[in-house]
């Protein structure tokens, strides 16, 4: 098998698993827009970092954490839903990203790179980073499973039991941001959204219990991303688009099967 195919498959499978895992948080908290907001924040960070001579990956990662933290904090003050505040943050960073694309030398090219990703250029360093982040998130979920599941069920009830619900909620948003940031350069902002949203939408029908849901969503993300990548290589298709369509096909296919009975 072609070495680049192996690396791309590994990168996409890990991306799919990581996005599928944190996709459960996005699904349970009802904040699907976070993927889009984070993608544009990362893009803004990378574009401006390149102009300032800062490592664009670190800047993208740092910037990607802002939507989660800002919108969570804004929700506390404005009492509007997280999605509303996420939309405002998305607008802010989209403006910054395309401002940079417009006025910085080479900005448009950099913006394009973060929008589409570069899975074909994935190297073992990227794979190692993706694996490390996935394992870290999984370990964090395992270690703090009780508080996390309570917050995902109902924030008020979680708070009423003495859990520091705000801290857990912010930590969940930061985990979502961190996974999105490290996956962005590999899979791009457009694919990120589908890998975060679709695996949990597939998995929830076949899951009983949160642990089950997490595992099935991560597995669905990994398999659908790997299948899409394999097909793209086999038929010489754009990888991003093929993975997105493969994800959608998985969702459509899942509807043909009866879900878990109660």
């Amino acid at each position, binding site marked *: 098998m072609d070495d680049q195919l192996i690396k791309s498959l590994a990168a996409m499978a890990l991306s799919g698993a990581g996005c599928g895992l944190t996709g459960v948080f996005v*699904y*349970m*908290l*009802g*904040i699907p827009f976070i993927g889009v907001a984070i993608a544009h924040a990362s893009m803004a960070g990378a574009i401006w970092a390149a102009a300032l001579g800062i490592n664009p990956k670190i800047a993208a990662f740092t910037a990607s954490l802002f939507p989660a933290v800002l919108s969570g904090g804004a929700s506390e003050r404005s009492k509007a839903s997280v999605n509303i505040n996420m939309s405002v943050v998305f607008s802010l960073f989209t403006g910054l990203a395309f401002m940079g694309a417009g006025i910085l030398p080479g900005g448009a090219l950099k913006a394009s790179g973060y929008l589409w990703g570069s899975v074909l250029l994935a190297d073992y360093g990227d794979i190692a980073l993706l694996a490390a982040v996935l394992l870290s998130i999984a370990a964090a979920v395992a270690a703090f499973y*009780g508080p996390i*599941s*309570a917050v995902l*069920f*109902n924030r*008020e*009830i*979680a*708070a*009423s*039991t*003495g859990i*520091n619900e705000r801290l857990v909620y912010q930590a969940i948003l930061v985990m979502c941001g961190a996974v999105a940031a490290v996956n962005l350069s590999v899979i791009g902002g457009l694919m990120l959204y589908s890998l975060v949203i679709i695996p949990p939408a597939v998995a*929830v*029908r076949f*899951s*009983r*219990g*949160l642990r*089950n*849901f997490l595992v099935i969503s991560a597995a669905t993300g990994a398999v659908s991303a790997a299948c899409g990548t394999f097909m793209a290589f086999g038929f010489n298709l754009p990888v991003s688009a093929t993975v997105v369509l493969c994800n959608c096909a998985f969702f459509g296919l899942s509807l043909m099967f009866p879900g878990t009975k*109660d």
Partner: protein
Amino acid sequence: MDICVECAGVNVKMNGVKVLNNINLKLSRGEFACVVGRSGSGKTTLLRTLLGFNPADSGTVQVAGAFANRQGIPVIRKRTGYLPQSLENNSSMSPFTAMDIINMGAKGEKAGGAIEELKIRPILSRRFSTLSGGEKQKVLLAMVLSRRPGVILLDEPNLNLDMVSYADFLNLVETAHRAHGQTILLVTHLLDRLPASCRRIIAMDSGRITYDGDRKGFMDPKMRGEAFGG
């Protein structure tokens, strides 16, 4: 008398409006009291103030031996069980099973005890989102009871329940109260569906306590009329 819940001169403002006005209240350990009143009278705000969700602008709040301040609120919440008026879940289909919900309160023997007490073993493996209103309330009650709190706050548990299911639920609450002796504060607007164990009525109107006494006295129509500003 061992005081378990105490409010002294508590005032709470929300968006510039006084929603709790000079609340003075004492509940003894093991007491079962009902808070009654019209919608908007401040009943839910009272419960949320006890838990620190709506901080008091003045006065003191003490629950289960802790003051409702920055340090005390986490302690209060660990010692108090709370069923909110409604659950706002973000997703229409949720994977949580009934057992998952109960385990958010406690696991092992404590959870098992609550499950047997409420006789909900047959529904443990079912998804919580597919349960009936009455079954959901029982699961949430089991979650609360499994924590073995000293104080239980119930906010209009009758919502989304038919009268038969509500009567069943109240029966379970009273059975648990007889068995474990928690201090219970039940908010309800159903004056004709008060639990038999409830000896004390606290009536609220426009953020004030307008009646605080025994159940027999509250049943007097004149007293009730005065309590609700009529």
